[in-house]
């Protein structure tokens, strides 16, 4: 083939025209097993680049080596959905001069599509690619080394970045089609030993929680779904991956079978649980922006009703065609909920960043019914508080909060409250939940925040929602 796109990583970087100060981007479909960010940034450091802006769809524990690259001035700006582990801790204590910009998955998609977040060079890991850059997250040969399933968060980067480099650990013969990343958008293809460790996609095996509190929360949340008025044939649903969220699916499934109700689609991060319901014929389509475990990743490889969507198609607030607009019910978790129903999923109650916005803002805002499931206390840390440490999802998007001490309904949804009360569920005032927490643990002292801003939380409409201050 003439003018082959197939080059070494160093040559791909040189060809890209990358210069100091530009923006590079990455996806996080391998989650804790990602190898692309560290590989590429190490190479950029070795080549002497400085002052780069890193626009990741998310970052986690595995990206700890970025701490040194920040100290050495290679990376001076970060935008992401979340931060965890030592990198998050260091940034919370002021490692990075520029505040980290946090966006939801839908918010990042919108920002890339409307040009607010301009990407100069995207480095996108793929489990299979041909020489022209048609690339996907599923195996396409018997030599495949990895699988991550949907590449939904990488698709806006592939489409809108000025220059796209695909990294793959399995180069296959043309045509690698169908493929989410289209060769027409790709400038270079780099073969590497490994783009990611697929065994680390799901943090721990997916199993039913045996924690009795999780089971109680899940049963209560399932009762809310079932009695909400939205539990009708053809409904649609999205859940998170926490123990309680997964267990909710189990109890909803029982009721679907009993009543003969089927869901039209499940959305979002797709789990093995959702795949099971789909294979049983209880869910029509799986709309997958991110495969949360290997079962889901394998399903999207083979099942035509399991569909890959970009983060724009998934959850953009600025594109009326995004899937969240058709979503009936979403079940979400929270680090904190306050008495105005505002939710924090990003900053721990010690002020340290330890989470991700994910699709929280997007799904809560667009769904017909958003249900937050969280315990009243985690150890001595209260989850229902007078004011959230950091505002991530505004209370006007949140309809119901399920705790083990009762279910609180947003006063803006009196019809939901009436339905739940009629079903005999324990509906309580959210103020009473906060008071109950305080009566058990006392009133916390204020957190030792300083003046400097280390993080900026964007709303999905592109406006600033809150700021995260340095922890002393």
């Amino acid at each position, binding site marked *: 083939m003439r003018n082959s796109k197939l080059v070494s990583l160093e040559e791909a970087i040189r060809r890209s025209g990358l210069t100091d100060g530009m923006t590079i981007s990455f996806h996080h479909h391998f989650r804790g097993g990602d190898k692309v960010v560290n590989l590429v940034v190490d190479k950029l450091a070795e080549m002497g680049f400085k002052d780069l802006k890193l626009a990741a769809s998310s970052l986690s524990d595995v990206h700890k080596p970025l701490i040194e690259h920040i100290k050495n001035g290679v990376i001076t700006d970060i935008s992401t959905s979340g931060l965890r582990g030592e990198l998050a801790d260091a940034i919370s204590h002021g490692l990075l001069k520029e505040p980290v910009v946090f966006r939801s998955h839908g918010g990042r998609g919108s920002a890339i599509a409307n040009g607010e977040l301009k990407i100069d060079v995207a480095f996108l890991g793929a489990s299979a690619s041909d020489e022209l850059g048609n690339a996907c997250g599923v195996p396409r040969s018997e030599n495949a080394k990895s699988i991550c399933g949907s590449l939904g968060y990488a698709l806006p980067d592939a489409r809108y970045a000025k220059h796209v480099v695909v990294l793959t650990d399995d180069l296959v013969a043309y045509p690698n089609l169908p493929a989410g990343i289209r060769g027409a958008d790709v400038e270079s293809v780099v073969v590497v030993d490994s783009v990611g460790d697929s065994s680390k996609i799901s943090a721990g095996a997916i199993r039913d929680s045996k924690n009795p509190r999780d089971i109680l929360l899940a049963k209560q949340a399932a009762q809310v779904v079932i009695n909400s008025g939205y539990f009708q044939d053809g409904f649609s649903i999205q859940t998170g991956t926490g123990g309680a969220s997964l267990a909710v699916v189990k109890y909803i499934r029982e009721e679907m079978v009993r009543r003969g109700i089927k869901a039209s689609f499940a959305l979002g991060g797709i789990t093995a649980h959702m795949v099971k319901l789909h294979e049983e014929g209880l869910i029509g389509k799986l709309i997958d922006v991110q495969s949360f475990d290997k079962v889901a990743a394998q399903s999207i490889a083979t099942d035509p009703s399991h569909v890959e969507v970009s983060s724009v198609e998934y959850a953009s607030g600025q594109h009326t065609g995004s899937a969240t607009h058709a979503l009936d019910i979403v079940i979400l978790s929270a680090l904190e909920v306050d008495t105005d129903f505002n939710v924090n999923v990003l900053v721990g*109650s*010690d*002020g340290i960043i330890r989470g991700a916005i994910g699709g929280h803002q997007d799904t809560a805002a667009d769904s017909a019914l958003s249900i937050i499931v969280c315990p009243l206390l*985690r*150890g*001595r*840390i209260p989850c229902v508080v007078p004011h959230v440490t950091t505002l991530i999802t505004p209370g006007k998007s949140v309809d119901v909060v399920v705790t083990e001490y009762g279910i609180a309904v947003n006063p803006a949804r009196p019809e939901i409250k009436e339905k739940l009360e009629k079903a005999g569920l324990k509906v309580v005032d959210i103020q009473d939940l906060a008071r109950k927490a305080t009566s058990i*643990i006392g009133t916390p*002292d204020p*957190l030792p925040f300083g003046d400097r801003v280390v993080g900026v939380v964007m709303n999905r409409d592109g406006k600033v929602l809150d700021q995260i201050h340095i922890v002393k």
Partner: protein
Amino acid sequence: MTVKNAVAGTLESGDIMVNIGPGEGLQIDLQSSVAAQFGRQIKDLIAQTLEGLGITDAHVEAIDKGALDCTIRARVTAAAVRATGKDVWKD
């Protein structure tokens, strides 16, 4: 009251490990996963519990993993009983 070295509690989440030993006055060293928000309250509670048991001279080292007040009181009391030999539940 003579205070020997004694310990109660574990390092499990939601628990507190309390070490008591001889000391002059009450000296409390606390490591806590919730120190910023609850350190002051936890130290006060440890002191109150010991004073309630008539212990005014002791060195306490406590490692807290987010225990609730009832747990802290129970662990401090158990450590004190072991340190003094005075069984507050029986006597």
